[in-house]
């Protein structure tokens, strides 16, 4: 298939690996920002094939993982209401809130539906005017345009029984927060390709300059990731810290102007809590005042739901690259995909789940 098989070619992968092996002279720690990249790295065994000097630190770019527990609890409260059809992307259904998940709400009679697009939720709202239809609008810059578009369409079409539960997060403030942490070991970033396909690359030169780190926009197939690593290693070895685009088939410098306009119209930048990390200033979006009436948090008055995270879960340190998943005492013991303490163990893109699912043979729990 075009753009899948070509980017999975073992012979080309070998060439890129040979070049990386030939270039590297000392240890480097780089963070792949996106959970999709983490998943691909572990699934294809890419980390096993890189030189020992290249350490991949798994970043916070899994939207499921960083959605705060409190927001999950708000979703559970709304989804439990008899008048609500609660629509979500599939992988949010298994994320544990306090004591239960959306699957459980569904099993108990709640109307929880998996959709592939927020516009499908809008279609449901139009078909079922007696119901309140809520879409769980989470994710990074990748999912924001479609969610913004849905709210825009709800207003344009006069669909009043639709609302959005918003927990959107933005990558650049998270990179800044990671680099500001005193114990930070990250020396370079593989930036999330699909985030950049929406936003472009204009947000990154300032970060690269301020923190003196190479930032290489990287895709998701094995060859994309190896090419991102190759360019990053080359910059590190040369002492450079530039923004490079190693994913030009999807990313333009200016991003996607139509998507950016839609985000601009519907959302405004806000502080946002990240699960396991805490509040990062300006790191999220919320519906702007003009669209407040479509905000499910206001419509259903769940502003008073307050939740504390499990103190045994060290996913925050994993998400910041401070520890590897298997260095958490709970890993593989009290915390498994079956009984996750934190969201990094739930989502297939979470670093802990990826380690547990694919790497049990090599990694043993520490501590």
């Amino acid at each position, binding site marked *: 298939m075009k753009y899948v098989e070509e980017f999975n070619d073992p012979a080309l992968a070998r060439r890129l690996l040979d070049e990386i092996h030939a270039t590297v002279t000392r240890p480097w720690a780089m963070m792949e920002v996106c959970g999709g990249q983490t998943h691909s790295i572990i*699934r294809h065994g890419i980390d096993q094939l890189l030189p020992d000097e290249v350490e991949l630190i798994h970043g916070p770019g899994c939207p499921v993982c960083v959605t705060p527990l409190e927001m999950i609890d708000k979703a559970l409260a709304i989804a439990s209401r008899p008048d609500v059809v609660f629509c979500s992307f599939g992988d949010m259904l298994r994320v544990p809130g306090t004591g239960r998940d959306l699957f459980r709400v569904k099993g108990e009679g709640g109307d929880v539906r998996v*959709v592939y697009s927020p516009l499908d939720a809008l279609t449901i709202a139009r078909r079922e005017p007696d119901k309140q239809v809520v879409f769980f609008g989470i994710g990074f810059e990748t999912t924001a345009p479609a969610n913004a578009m849905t709210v825009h369409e709800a207003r344009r079409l006069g669909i009043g029984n639709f609302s959005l539960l918003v927990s959107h997060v933005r990558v650049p403030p998270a990179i800044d927060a990671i680099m500001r942490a005193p114990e930070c070991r990250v020396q370079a970033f593989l930036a999330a390709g699909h985030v950049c396909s929406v936003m472009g690359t204009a947000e990154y030169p300032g970060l690269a300059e301020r923190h003196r780190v190479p930032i290489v926009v990287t895709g998701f197939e094995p060859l994309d990731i190896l090419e991102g690593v190759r360019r990053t290693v080359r910059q590190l070895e040369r002492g450079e810290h530039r923004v490079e685009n190693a994913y030009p088939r999807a990313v333009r410098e200016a991003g996607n102007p139509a998507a950016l306009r839609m985000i601009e119209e519907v959302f405004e930048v806000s502080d946002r809590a990240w699960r396991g990390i805490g509040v990062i200033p300006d790191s999220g979006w919320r519906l702007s005042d003009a669209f407040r009436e479509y905000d499910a948090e206001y419509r259903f008055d769940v502003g008073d739901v307050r939740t504390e995270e499990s103190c045994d879960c060290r996913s925050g340190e994993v998400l910041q690259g401070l520890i590897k998943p298997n260095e958490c005492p709970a890993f593989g013991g009290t915390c498994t995909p*079956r009984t996750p303490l934190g969201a990094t163990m739930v989502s297939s893109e979470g670093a802990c789940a990826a380690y547990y699912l694919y790497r049990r043979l090599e990694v043993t729990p520490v501590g």
Partner: protein
Amino acid sequence: MADTGAIGAGASGTAIGTGVIDTVVDPANWSCPAPLRDHPVVVMGHGGGGALSAELTQHLFSPAYGNETLAALTDSAAVQLGGARLAFTTDSYVVRPLFFPGGSIGDLAVNGTVNDLAMSGARAAYLSTAFILEEGVRLDVVGRVAQAVGAAASAAGVRVATGDTKVVESGHGDGVYLNTSGIGLIPPGVDIRPQRATPGDVIIVSGPIGAHGVAVLSVREGLEFGSDVVSDTAPLGGLVAAMLAVTPDLHVLRDPTRGGLATSLCEIAAASGTGVVLTESAVPVPDSVTAACGFLGLDPLYVANEGRLVAFVPPEHADAVLAAMHDHPQGAGAAVIGTCVTEHPGMVVARTGLGGTRVVDLPLGEQLPRIC
């Protein structure tokens, strides 16, 4: 086993026969043992064919029924009756939509049960059919399903010997639910079950995987996408007979339906205590399935098949069995995909196309589409 699709909007079922008999519990005092306590109500994952399904069987049904026939980890039970060894199985079909590219619930209900019998080495002889119809469903729809059952039975060389019909009120069903049970004779000298997987066994899949699951998803309400993929639903009794003609000593056969090839391999590794090494690049996956799985965020290894089998064959017979499969229409695309090893007992490890390795695990419940 019945396909239920991979997504939450579908339906659900659980196969008996994957359990280990625990102590029998006192029904008056019964409480769900861990880890079922996480879900005091049934969730869709209990029918997904993964870990939750296995736990339901192991912790709830097996203790309640408690007998040795159930304890064997097989798609169909092998039972002794008079002088005959029979394979016996039942399955319920709750697929949505009822008709999909390449087949219908009627084809699945016949082929699924015929294939469960074939996985014991048996040629299906007789089937029962039980229809649960929802009030208001059009009779021409029921008629089309019945025609499909008849045609599939004829193609598989099996007779529908008995049947039943019930009707539930509108809103209490999903149009047509269908249950079939089947019996067939197991040839003498044949002992096919997952416990017999042995280090050295060669693992063969009978053809490209994933077509059925993708075909059903491509027409599911709310998820329609353009695709030329058609279901692989087909009876496998003839293919199994051709393989048994080479040697009666096939160790394991399984049709990787719900949960896909990965789930079947995990179950066989666990039941036999052998390690399984899967060569990922050797697994045949049609380009169109790769493409659909790519944009849906699904892994073809976990997508349902309805006309494929995976065989564990002693190495001395592997070439001849593979050749016999290639000569049969249902096995034309057969390929060796792995071996049984003494390392990592009970666990499946894939060698990736790039040369790395990873563990292949049971899915917890249903495969969930990813966000981005």
